[in-house]
């Protein structure tokens, strides 16, 4: 066991994956000599050489597009897009090609690639560096969307993403890159994709979150425990495909649901979870489903960022409201 930050855990997973499978390549802007702007790929160039760690020209669409060509040819490219604000031009490649090649060719061509990108706010970055576009990606059939919430989970989920036979968009919470640290066992074990992780058990209320918001969700659960409200905290981890069963089973027990995400509320991923719970566990619900989310606004610049992000107080308030409903 070594104590690693989340970005170091990403680095460890990349190293592990590259060691175990020569088909794994890393490409992106500044991923080579510089080791990535967040150092996620630090040391990889030295270890694996420029045949496997490729600094690309500044061209996000083609980073995704070239990765598709590599993946179809049997490589396992792991592309880094420096910030999700620059990943939107990749959506053409992901939506029109990576996600569809298997189906279009009836399984003849496949696209086992990973598109990694730091996502979310809270680091007082310059504009276009702090958004949470997970719902946009989760709307695309044929890809998987993963968002880890801790170093251990980043390590295990990234290994599984790289080993997955289908394209995976892997969104890493920037705010946790250095802030989250824990002992990580670098043993090559992947965490299964498509499974929610129950991080805290509770009988009264279910809090569902993912990515960096897990930190606030767990803290809120701590506060609620002091009020004798036992909150269950579920880390969605893989947004697509969604493990509805774990969420439904929890809500069937607790009867109350608070969904937390950083992205704007309208058409946010919380809407999907709420619809599923309303559709399948209606009779278990004891209170309206609460959503604690970012606002339907532009992500404010750094000075106002904290007012945009859902905080522990807002989650606790939503939980109290759900508990008080009769």
């Amino acid at each position, binding site marked *: 066991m070594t104590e690693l930050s989340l970005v170091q855990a990403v680095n460890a997973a990349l190293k592990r994956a590259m060691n175990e499978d020569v088909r794994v*390549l890393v490409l992106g802007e500044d991923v080579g000599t510089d080791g990535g702007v967040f150092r996620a790929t630090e040391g990889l160039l030295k270890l694996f050489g420029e*045949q496997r760690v*490729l600094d*690309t*020209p500044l*061209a996000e*669409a*083609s980073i*995704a*597009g*070239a*990765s*598709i*060509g*590599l*993946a*179809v*040819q*049997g*490589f396992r*490219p792991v592309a880094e897009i420096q910030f999700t604000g620059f990943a939107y031009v990749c959506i*053409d*490649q992901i939506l*029109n*090609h990576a996600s569809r*090649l*298997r*189906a*279009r*060719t*009836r*399984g*003849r*061509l*496949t696209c086992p690639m990973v598109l990694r990108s730091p996502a979310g706010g809270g680091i007082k970055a310059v504009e276009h560096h702090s958004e949470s576009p997970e719902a946009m990606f989760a709307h695309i*059939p*044929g890809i*998987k969307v993963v968002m880890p919430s801790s170093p251990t989970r980043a390590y295990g989920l990234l290994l599984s993403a790289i080993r*997955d*036979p*289908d394209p995976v968009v892997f969104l890493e919470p920037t705010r946790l890159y250095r802030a989250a640290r824990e002992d990580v066992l670098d043993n090559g074990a992947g965490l299964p994709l*498509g499974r929610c992780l129950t991080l805290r058990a509770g009988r009264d209320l279910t809090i569902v979150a993912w990515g960096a918001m897990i930190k606030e969700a767990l803290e809120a659960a701590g506060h609620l425990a002091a009020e004798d409200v036992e909150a269950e905290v579920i880390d969605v981890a893989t947004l697509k*495909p*969604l493990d*509805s*069963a774990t969420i439904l089973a929890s809500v069937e027990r607790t009867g109350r649901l608070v969904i937390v995400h950083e992205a704007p509320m309208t058409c946010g991923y919380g809407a999907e979870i709420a619809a599923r719970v309303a559709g399948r566990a209606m009779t278990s619900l004891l209170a309206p489903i609460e959503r604690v989310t970012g606002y339907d606004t532009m992500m404010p610049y750094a000075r106002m960022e904290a007012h945009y992000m859902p905080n522990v107080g807002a989650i606790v308030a939503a939980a109290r409201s759900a508990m008080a409903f009769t």
Partner: protein
Amino acid sequence: MLGKRLLCVLDRDGKLVGPIPEFARVPTELLRLYRALVLTRTFDTKAIALQRTGRLGTYASSLGQEAVSVGAAAAMAKSDVLVPSFREHGAQLWRGVTLKELFLYWGGDERGNDFAGPREDFPNCVPVASQAPHAVGVALAFRLRGEQRAAVCVFGDGATSKGDVAEALNMAGVWKVPAVFVINNNAWAISVPRQKQTAAATLAQKAVAAGIPGEQVDGNDVIAVRAVTEQALARARQGLGPTLIEALTYRLCDHTTSDDASRYRDDAEVSGHWPTEPVARLRKFLTDSGHWDKDMEEALLHECSSAVEAAAAEYLATPAQPVSAIFDYIYAEIPAELAEQREAAAVHAQGDA
């Protein structure tokens, strides 16, 4: 290079105007090319007829541009990979995609992309230019594995206005990957003529900015197209990097069967281009050089027509896929939630309220 030289072997009357490449000294090779041009055009005619009678979907004709397609594909090795747009039926047929597969694709059946022949070739790319970066990735894969293979990417004149092409040429140049980019410059991007597409004097000169060679070739001269593509592929295989080829041709047809080109261009312009079209040009050369006559022509037309009719009949007799096929290829392993949708779709498919 770069628009100063337009490579041409046969003029519009089928007369030799340039040095004849090695392959073109072998009559059987020329006959193979001629057969491919005729087969492509026969397929094209049938596809339009099927569409007009409601038995095929919207179809993008390649009328007049067959030499670009056939010439580029004929230069390729079997193990190379074709990354086409949606108008390169001639290239696909040359590489072993079957007529039935083409009919299936344009008839709205994904199985048309499951090529039994060229297993690694990409399917058609409808979002213009977005296939160009794929060719860079494919070619990079070849380079990384040390293989003597290359990717050939074909796109239209309109595609050269898009960022994807600029990015792909640039990336291919930086990495010196074995890729050849062929522009099927048919002078029209639906209703927008070439001169409204770019202020650049040639499309080939777009290579300059990427630091790679750019060539113009007479795209109605199948011999020239094959020759220039062969040279580019030879460079690629020697590790010298990518090439951009601008093949100048003319879209004698509508953009697709959903288009009506008379809305935006004069018939006179179109008829002015018929004397330069590629099939008659090669036929004249073959006839003049004593390798072709009327009987051979009739026999070939009959052979192509039979093949196309048989494939069309096979296509029309192919039952649609089961409803479950909508779901079966989305992921390697179907997620639980999608399996539920698959079951629901099977029930809805029964049609009962």
